[in-house]
């Protein structure tokens, strides 16, 4: 049986603490929500269940279509998010690469080039003003 504090995460059993934590989190939140729902007072009048809008009577529908500019921001976020994914394998291997003199600069240059392309894209996005918030 592996120790729960084993740093070497090469098998699935090392994820047991994370699973225990997830179970604890879900159980804790579920218990708290259920407790407050059961023990809390409930006064469901029509005025109370109305959507809160700082005392002003609400009008219209909240489901109005959003502008496409939000979507552009979201897509750019996804691209940079995927970029971060590629750093994980490099970060995990960083020490072994740095110890190997033939690999150290080669891999570093590869990552630098990878980031360089993203910097070009970032400069393009900034220059185009794609992140500028306008109506």
């Amino acid at each position: 049986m592996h120790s729960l504090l084993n740093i070497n995460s090469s098998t699935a059993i090392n994820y047991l603490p994370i699973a225990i934590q997830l179970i604890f989190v879900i159980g804790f939140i579920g218990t708290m929500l259920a407790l407050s729902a059961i023990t809390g007072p409930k006064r469901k009048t029509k005025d109370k269940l109305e959507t809160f809008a700082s005392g002003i009577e609400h009008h219209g529908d909240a489901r109005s279509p959003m502008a496409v500019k939000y979507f552009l921001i979201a897509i750019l976020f996804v691209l940079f998010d995927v970029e971060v994914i590629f750093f994980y394998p490099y970060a995990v291997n960083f020490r072994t690469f740095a110890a190997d003199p033939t690999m150290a600069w080669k891999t570093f240059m590869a990552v630098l080039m990878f980031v360089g392309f993203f910097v070009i894209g970032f400069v393009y996005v900034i220059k185009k003003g794609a992140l500028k918030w306008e109506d």
Partner: protein
Amino acid sequence: MNLIQIIFWFLSSFAVISAIMVLVSKSPVHSVLWLIAVFFAISGHYILLNAQFLAIVNLIVYAGAIMVLFLFVIMMMNLNKDTDPQKNIWIKLAGAVSGGCLLMVLVSLVKQATEINGKEAMLGKGDIGLIGTLGKVLFTDFVVPFEISSVLFLSAMVGAVVIGKKDSKLENN
């Protein structure tokens, strides 16, 4: 039943129930939340198969980023009561029949596939899917595809900006 089997059956039933809830939910936002639950269950499966990189990518990219895109698509569409899709019984029946046919084809294909018959999935062993192993391969043998993928991201970025951003100079002329 050992621990891994119990976790497997729990994750599988959780994934299937969540996937059914994606379809059953009336509110599209609830569907997206159930889809996140499906992704978490699949990530658990990846960890059981020792594909840890895939598990992390699945959580960060799919449960994190792609779900944001889904939410934005839902927000962009006008999902009012009056624009609901039609609820014709015949269309529902046709959908159920065609979906059932697809399920039948998939099940029969899996049953006929001799490559996977009587084989067991490697659970909790093997180090091909570990982040460290993947990094070693990625930065030694597959450096060129790695760089090409960044060019792909660059082109995606340019494409998104060109399509999504209205050109102010073009409008002024």
